[in-house]
């Protein structure tokens, strides 16, 4: 009997007695879901497993010298970015949702734009703009005649700078979720608060904010996970965190064991974040007590208040998108003729190929996972789906460690075995191949595709299935003629989201890409590392332009998401 045998011939009158395995795991669908979940979880499990292998003096050395710095910097970074994204994200979300002022509709979308810029790109750009030789300081000196030591200038490449850069590109997570939460709040609840003696500010503080808290916490958690995932910014700003530490231990010191140990600690930070998010939800359940929606009243702001609101919304967009994008474009105009050549096109093609493969694989896996839960809605399959969706929380370098070290070990063993027995070297079979790096992308970005696919499959109600079946369609015909047309746009959206994430991804790509297989993101990283910031702009601009696509998709989804607000 094979693994997937569900029907044992001649077994009982119906011939449908389940096999022993099926009795434990359900059946094929359950097994598929479990296998995919295990695949996502394996790298993280491997990291903890590898970290448990003692590295002796190396670890001692790390603890004595740098561990405290890593922890300190990481904590300050998390707190700084947390406060930053909370303030900007919630503040702007509230303004554009509840008030009317000129440009409000533009800001609703524009506030998402900084999301299109990867943190490392904005870090390179601001360094190029603000460092000693950059246009801002040069202009200042030309204007005032000051020399180098005549004035104080904040150091961009610092912990504070890293906090600012990450805040500027990560606040849209909070903005997006807070705005969705404010939109779905019944305006009746807010109005009741007004009639009970609370002014607009106290209503915000005592009703709107507590109701949106779960969403806001989720947004901040996502932003902080991205902060922990960041490598490009902290590396460039020479802020020693776990990400730079892992990289240095692994490649600088040639100590993969120590890298795994640092990765495990970094993963503990992530798990602490997840736990904090869950705990913060607490007992109160924020079911909407009100099912009635009215077009939000939108308090008209006039004069100074209106100007303040415009300013508050304009600043994040200006510094998070317009300034860096303009700078990139200006540099690109100058340097593109030299930089955009055959080599550049090859990088673009590599990026595209990687992203396309990962996107298609992620969508395919998501479809399998979503259908396995639809067809076998058991707790086990549900848990498998949730585990598969947890991969986004694992920082890129953690995933890289968790995949590369076991793969390298596997390759070495096979190679040694083949050489010993057949005198023939197999070289690298898994590590440093497209398979390995695609695997890493799937672990990181499967959640993005899965949530989209799940939401879309949920729109196909069971009664639609039943209607199709009673109208004479078999299961396959039902899937093709009912499910496929309904889900097609969402599958495309899921693919686009993963595609763009892969385009922007830096740390895992950096570590895991096949030899000589560079991408646009790698190019930006390498040129910036050589202080050729202007030269890196063409590739960076290409990444930003691609990054705008999901911003457009998301802003459309939010606009249509509010009940009774379709198309508004």
């Amino acid at each position, binding site marked *: 009997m094979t693994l997937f045998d569900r029907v044992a011939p001649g077994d009982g009158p119906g011939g449908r007695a389940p096999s022993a395995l099926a009795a434990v795991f359900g059946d094929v669908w359950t097994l598929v879901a479990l296998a995919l979940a295990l695949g996502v979880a394996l790298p993280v499990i491997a990291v903890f497993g590898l970290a448990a292998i003692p590295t002796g003096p190396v670890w001692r050395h790390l603890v004595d010298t740098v561990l405290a710095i890593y922890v300190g910097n990481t904590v300050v970074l998390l707190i700084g970015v947390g406060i930053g994204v909370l303030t900007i994200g919630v503040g702007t979300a509230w303004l554009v949702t509840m008030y009317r002022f000129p440009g409000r509709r533009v800001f609703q979308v524009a506030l998402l734009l900084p999301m299109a810029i990867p943190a490392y790109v904005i870090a390179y750009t601001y360094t190029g703009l603000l460092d000693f030789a950059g246009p801002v300081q040069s202009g200042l000196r030309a204007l005032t005649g000051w020399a180098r030591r005549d004035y104080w200038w904040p150091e961009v490449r610092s912990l504070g700078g890293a906090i600012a850069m990450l805040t500027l590109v990560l606040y849209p997570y909070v903005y997006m979720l807070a705005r969705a939460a404010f939109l779905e709040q019944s305006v009746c609840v807010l*109005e009741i608060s007004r009639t009970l003696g609370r002014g607009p500010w106290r209503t915000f503080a005592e009703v709107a904010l507590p*109701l949106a808290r779960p969403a806001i916490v989720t947004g901040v958690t996502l932003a902080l996970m991205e902060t922990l995932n960041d490598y490009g910014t902290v590396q460039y700003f020479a802020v020693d965190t776990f990400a730079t530490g892992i990289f240095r231990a692994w490649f600088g010191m040639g100590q993969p064991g120590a890298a795994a140990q640092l990765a495990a600690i970094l993963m503990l930070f992530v798990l602490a974040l997840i736990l904090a998010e869950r705990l913060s939800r607490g007992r109160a359940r924020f*079911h909407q*007590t*009100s099912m*009635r929606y009215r077009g939000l009243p939108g308090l008209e702001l006039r004069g100074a208040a209106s100007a303040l609101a415009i300013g508050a919304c304009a600043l994040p967009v200006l510094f998070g998108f317009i300034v860096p994008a303009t700078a990139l474009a200006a540099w690109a105009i100058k340097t593109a003729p030299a930089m955009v050549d055959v080599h550049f096109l090859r990088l673009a093609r590599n990026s595209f190929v990687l992203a396309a493969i990962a996107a298609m694989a992620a969508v395919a896996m998501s479809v399998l996972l979503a259908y396995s839960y639809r067809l076998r809605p058991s707790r086990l399959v549900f848990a498998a789906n949730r585990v598969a969706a947890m991969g986004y929380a694992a920082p890129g370098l953690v995933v890289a460690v968790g995949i590369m070290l076991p793969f390298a070990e596997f390759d070495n063993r096979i190679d040694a075995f083949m050489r010993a027995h057949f005198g023939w070297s197999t070289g690298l079979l898994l590590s440093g191949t497209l398979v390995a790096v695609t695997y890493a992308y799937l672990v990181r970005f499967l959640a993005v595709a899965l949530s989209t696919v799940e939401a879309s499959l949920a729109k196909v109600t069971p009664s639609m299935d039943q209607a199709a079946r009673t109208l004479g369609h078999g299961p396959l015909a039902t899937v093709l003629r009912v499910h496929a047309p309904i889900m097609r746009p969402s599958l495309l959206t899921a693919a686009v989201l993963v595609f763009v994430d892969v385009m922007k991804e830096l740390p895992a790509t950096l570590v895991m890409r096949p030899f000589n297989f560079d991408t646009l993101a790698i190019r930006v990283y390498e040129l910036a590392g050589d202080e050729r910031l202007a030269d890196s702009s063409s590739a960076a601009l290409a990444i930003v332009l691609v990054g705008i696509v999901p911003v457009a998709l998301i802003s459309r989804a939010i606009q249509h998401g509010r009940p009774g607000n379709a198309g508004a």
Partner: protein
Amino acid sequence: MDALRLDRVSHRFGGLLAVDEVSLAVHPGEVVCLLGPSGCGKTTVLRIAAGLERLQAGRVLISGQTVADGTIDLPPEKRGVGLVFQDYALFPHLNVLDNVAFGLVDARDTPARKARAQDVLAQVDMADWAASWPHELSGGQQQRVALARALAPRPRLVLLDEPFSGLDSRLRDQVRDQTLHVLKQSGAATLMVTHDSEEAMFMADRIAVMRQGRVVQLGRPTQLYCQPDSVFVASFFSEINRIKGVVKSGSVHTPFGAVAADGLAEGAEVAVLIRPEALRLSAIEDGAPEPASAARVLAARLLGRTSLIHLCMGDMGGQHLHLHARMPGQFLPTEDEIVAVDLDRRQTFVFPIAETT
């Protein structure tokens, strides 16, 4: 002094005139209902009174104080009104007691606030639920908490926006009854919006019937029911039979004989409106004299306290009349039986036909 006075209040949404010169007063302790079909502007009037909608034209006074006119517009939190929404809009992040205590902003000390909140909860029979969360309550319980929350700060004016329409019909009667008692006990003036005429008659001391942004008739429920001044008002309070006719020498000819048409021009086309209970039916005894008018029974149904009888009346110029009659208790003639019909002219109204549109 009126608890609430609206003076020629008008309101536009874009090009739509939603409220058109509405004037209305609610006296202390009085319950006034704004009654009308959806989209007639009644909710907008309520929202203007609460300060949730910015006043565009007219004047709003609460307890003699101008809260909104061309120059001032007091925000809702300064008006001291209690508001209950159709969907109650309880705060999902606060438990029942904290919901009710939310509006007690002046009472600085917490024990006094809690005590007052507990008191009001007791008035609506929800004292035992103080520690519960809104999502744990049934619709009727949520409605009572919402009412308690609105009443807790002792507002002089309570505004109710379709407060019972979220409840199923059996629960509704009970909750309505209790709400009326609580409101009357509190002494607050109440302005309530509803589209249900029966509900308005149940709750209101006076009713303002609204249509297309205007108050078309204002009065006690009996006045509106017994002396409607338009087809719209007459037909809004119950299902109604309608017969066309022409005025001839001051009256209209109907199958029930002449019906007076005072003040209408000779030859004018009119609609005669007859409430179903105005048609009094009786069985025709054998050998009894021929009744003045008679009808054939198409169907008869018992609806509980009343019976509904579908009648077909002999031809008026070749056309059959289908009428509904309502009789108290169980009155169920068999199909095709001929019954005597007597018309109660006090519940029969004549309006010129031009107005029926």
